[in-house]
């Protein structure tokens, strides 16, 4: 059942990405163009997504779930060098390709030389990251 829930959530997530325009690299690059022709679309997407998630978490934090582990009661406040280095590199790559992991996987539904090569390079980057990460988490 957990697998079915995850599948359904994945479908809904992808539809949300598509309707909001976030599968288009041009939209992402427009949002990052703060000092040029700024496109605020991604800001509205976050304004739509975060309150919904926040309400759900606030209502259920620490509570058991029907099909898995309890909802985490605490959130992660750890700031370390990995976060600073990783998020900075992520931002640079995001501005190069205009794609982040969710849209990269979703765009597999419309295979093109671009969507396939960006997904393949993201997968390679994820695999390479295991070289600089501790094994167990």
């Amino acid at each position, binding site marked *: 059942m957990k697998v079915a829930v995850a599948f359904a959530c*994945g479908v809904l997530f992808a539809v949300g*990405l598509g*309707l909001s325009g976030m599968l288009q690299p041009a939209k992402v690059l427009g949002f990052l163009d703060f000092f040029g022709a700024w496109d605020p679309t991604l800001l509205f997407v976050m304004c739509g997504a975060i309150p919904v998630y926040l309400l759900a978490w606030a209502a259920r934090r620490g509570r058991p779930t029907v099909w898995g582990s309890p909802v985490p009661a605490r959130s992660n406040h750890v700031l370390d060098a990995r976060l600073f280095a990783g998020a900075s590199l992520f931002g640079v790559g995001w501005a190069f390709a205009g794609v982040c992991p969710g849209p990269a996987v979703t765009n597999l539904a419309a295979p093109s030389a671009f969507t396939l090569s960006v997904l393949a390079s993201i997968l390679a980057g994820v695999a390479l990251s295991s070289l600089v990460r501790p094994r167990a988490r």
Partner: protein
Amino acid sequence: MGAALFGGALIGLAAAGLLVLTGKTAGVSGIVDGVLRGERGEWGWKAAFLLGLVSGGLLLAWRDPTALASAAPRTWPWVIAGGLLVGFGARLGGGCTSGHGVCGVGRGSLRGIVGTTLFIASGALTVLVLRRLA
């Protein structure tokens, strides 16, 4: 703007559904990592979530193919280098746009808020520099 808010709400609903029904975080880079590593005990739901993303993409391709990406925004070296940095950076920093940006910020996580601020800032700076170079 309305479409972006509505689409965003669906993204939030999907991530919230996964959280309250299974206790899991909808962070796509972490999910991709778990599937690639064949993570014991987590592989099934993670693979199902990714399959759901592609299926949702197929729904979009059927109803509104313009929603999906087609052309590359930059030349190939940028696209490949960008993908590598996105994958590597997301795992090094422990999250991407979904894990830090939606779930982390949505849980009031300092790590998520700082990570999101940082990658938007470094992305904006990169776009600025690339435009100056062009």
